């Protein structure tokens, strides 16, 4: 009979396929297990990285299956799309049935259904003081809700129910997931993620987009980094990164503010986050030159690209630039200065002066060993620049999901039935039973409590 019903479904086999819970389970498990891959294999590493780490065979497989960016691969997105269709179809299918339960035209109670229940509370009572059924009815109304009363042969039955609407909870959860998916699609299509590095004092209106290689976007306004500050705790751990920036629109300064980690700047739907920082340049460099021959040390303050004459008639030196990390035979020497020595005979040689290793240049065995004593750093601030018009859909989804889960898990549709059997001689037998669409254990305790209260109500 079930088969026949399915065949008659006007939407056909595709509909039937998508409205099965088995498909939900398979898709959810597939999403769970494929997600693991992305946590084990680093994402967005670039072709060379995979070739070096996994060899040619595997890296080819990875490229073919988009494993290097698997959460955006066609097959992962297909799984998400299948989940979305599955949720929609399942929900429509079930809501057709549940709708009639949630909003019935007429509520019908069948005492037989309650009489078959295993868990029931029974107690005897006497009807001495007044109309016992009325008293129970009033009690049930206060505790549960509207009471329906039926008189059967030899007994009176009272029904009350609450939480019929809670059956809608699961659909709230399902729609919240759809909202999350819609929100992320909107963000992906109409939003962007980019970054910008601005040295202190500089202004820019161009940001580098993360999608694609070196794509740029020009904003409607410019941003200037006034200052960048980093403060440290006494332990040496960073305390706060702070950029003071000014937004300039059509040549007018519209806003000056600080950007701190966790306190982004939002302007015209675009958000700026403090994401990194670094040293853009150095000024007021103090250089020490130690002569190999005499062992004398000379100290001098220098500027970039301004040649100085070396002592003891050993030629000239010019400081050319500053690098954040200098690679020396596979080792990163960290912040380093790069300069050029011109010997009296005209031969030029490039020298590297790592800040952290002041004796490094001695190994060169030149006429002078160069070291940098101190210098002033000019920072650049690294800001992440994002626009995500889908975020409000996602946030609405979040709220709906919490509400929906709460309703689905912790609220239920409960129906209570109290049957009062007349035993004659002013004696009655009271039977309290209840059903619920979830959490039978808690209902059992509730029913017992209710029966106890009713028993005490009587005396």
């Amino acid at each position: 009979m079930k088969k026949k019903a399915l065949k008659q479904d006007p939407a056909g086999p595709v509909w039937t396929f998508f409205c099965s819970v088995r498909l939900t389970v398979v898709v959810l498990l597939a999403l769970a297990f494929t997600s693991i891959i992305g946590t084990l294999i680093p994402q967005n590493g670039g072709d060379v990285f995979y070739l070096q780490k996994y060899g040619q065979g595997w890296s080819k497989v990875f490229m073919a299956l988009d494993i290097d960016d698997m959460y955006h691969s066609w097959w992962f997105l297909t799984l998400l799309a299948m989940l979305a269709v599955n949720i929609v179809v399942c929900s429509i299918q079930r809501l057709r049935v549940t709708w009639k339960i949630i909003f019935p035209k007429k509520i019908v109670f069948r005492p037989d259904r309650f009489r078959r229940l295993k868990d029931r509370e029974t107690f005897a009572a006497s009807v001495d003081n007044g109309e016992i059924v009325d008293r129970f009815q009033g009690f049930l109304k206060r505790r549960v809700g509207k009471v329906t009363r039926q008189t059967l042969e030899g007994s009176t039955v009272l029904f009350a129910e609450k939480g019929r609407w809670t059956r809608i909870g699961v659909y709230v959860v399902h729609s919240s997931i759809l909202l999350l998916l819609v929100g992320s699609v909107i963000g992906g299509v109409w939003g962007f993620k980019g970054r910008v590095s601005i040295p202190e004092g500089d202004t820019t209106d161009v940001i580098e987009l993360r999608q694609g290689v070196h794509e740029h976007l020009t904003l409607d306004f410019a941003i200037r980094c006034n200052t960048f500050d980093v403060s440290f705790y006494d332990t040496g751990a960073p305390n706060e990164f702070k950029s003071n920036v000014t937004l300039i629109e059509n040549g007018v300064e519209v806003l000056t503010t600080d950007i701190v980690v966790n306190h982004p700047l939002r302007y015209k739907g675009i958000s700026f986050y403090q994401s990194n920082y670094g040293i853009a340049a150095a000024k007021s460099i103090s250089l020490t030159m130690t002569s190999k021959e005499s062992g004398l040390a000379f100290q001098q303050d220098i500027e970039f690209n301004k040649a100085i004459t070396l002592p003891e008639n050993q030629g000239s030196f010019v400081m050319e630039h500053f690098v954040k990390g200098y690679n020396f035979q596979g080792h990163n020497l960290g912040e380093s200065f790069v300069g050029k020595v011109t010997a009296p005979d005209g031969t030029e040689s490039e020298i590297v002066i790592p800040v952290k290793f002041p004796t490094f240049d001695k190994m060169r065995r030149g006429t002078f060993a160069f070291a940098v004593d101190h210098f002033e750093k000019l920072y650049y601030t690294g800001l992440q620049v994002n626009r995500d018009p889908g975020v409000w859909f996602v946030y609405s989804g979040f709220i709906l999901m919490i509400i929906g889960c709460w309703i689905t898990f912790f609220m239920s549709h409960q129906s209570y039935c109290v049957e009062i059997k007349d035993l004659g001689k002013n004696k009655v037998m009271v039977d309290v039973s209840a059903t619920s669409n979830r959490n039978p254990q808690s209902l059992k305790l509730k029913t017992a409590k209710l029966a106890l209260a009713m028993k005490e109500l009587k005396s």
Partner: protein
Amino acid sequence: MNSPMLLSITTFVYAFASVLYIGSWTFKKKFLSTLGIGVLITGFLGNTAGILLRWIESYQMGYGHAPFSNMYESLVFFSWTVAALYIFVEFKYRERIIGVFATPLIFLAIAYASLSPNIADKITPLIPALKSNWLIAHVITCFLGYAGFAVAFGFSIMYLVKPENTQEGAFLSKLPALAVIDELTYQMVMFGFLFLTIGIITGAVWANSAWGTYWSWDPKETWSLITWLIYAVMLHLRMMRGWNGKQIAWVSILGFMAVLFTYFGVNLLPGLHSYA
């Protein structure tokens, strides 16, 4: 008395509580489990005091932050949430002996924090990214979620250990009826699922205010999603396909393995959440 010392003492109180529960079960003495809940509550109070003391100490040191920032503090808080949830369940469902598999988890978590040489109990300042009120909301909700799954795991083990037909007075007969254990497992998973959901959401909102993306497929984020998906599957199997008993117990154990990996295993992978 400083917080690590108080929490070390708490570790032994919890150990005593689990010994009492296990003793009550093996020797079929009810008063041992009654004593067990008393000791457990004592441990819980010590645990609470330890967390508060640590909070105060961090202010005294000038760092001033909620004690949820490193592995030590998170394990201590994990014990606290499992203990709180378990005590609540025992009072709500009036089953004394169900702590036999849950209380050792409380003890193990705090023992790992207090006794492992790899876990430092020093109070350190917060890095800039963690300085947010979302930290408190995110950590509390995630750990309530973990606690729900941990207690469910304890119940699942109990379900699998208990034979279907036990004779009166037999070794395992003191455990509650299978149907009750099954229902409790399910309740705990629902509790855990709701709070894991809120935990993921608070994390996402926080990430959006700190980095501008509510989801970046960081390994811990991804593993929390994997955990969420496994429990979502479990709830569907239970609600829609009528799975219960042993089948559900096994899925709950699988889910808890995912929780453990999300909690500990992810630290082996690079990402924003690693507790270095």
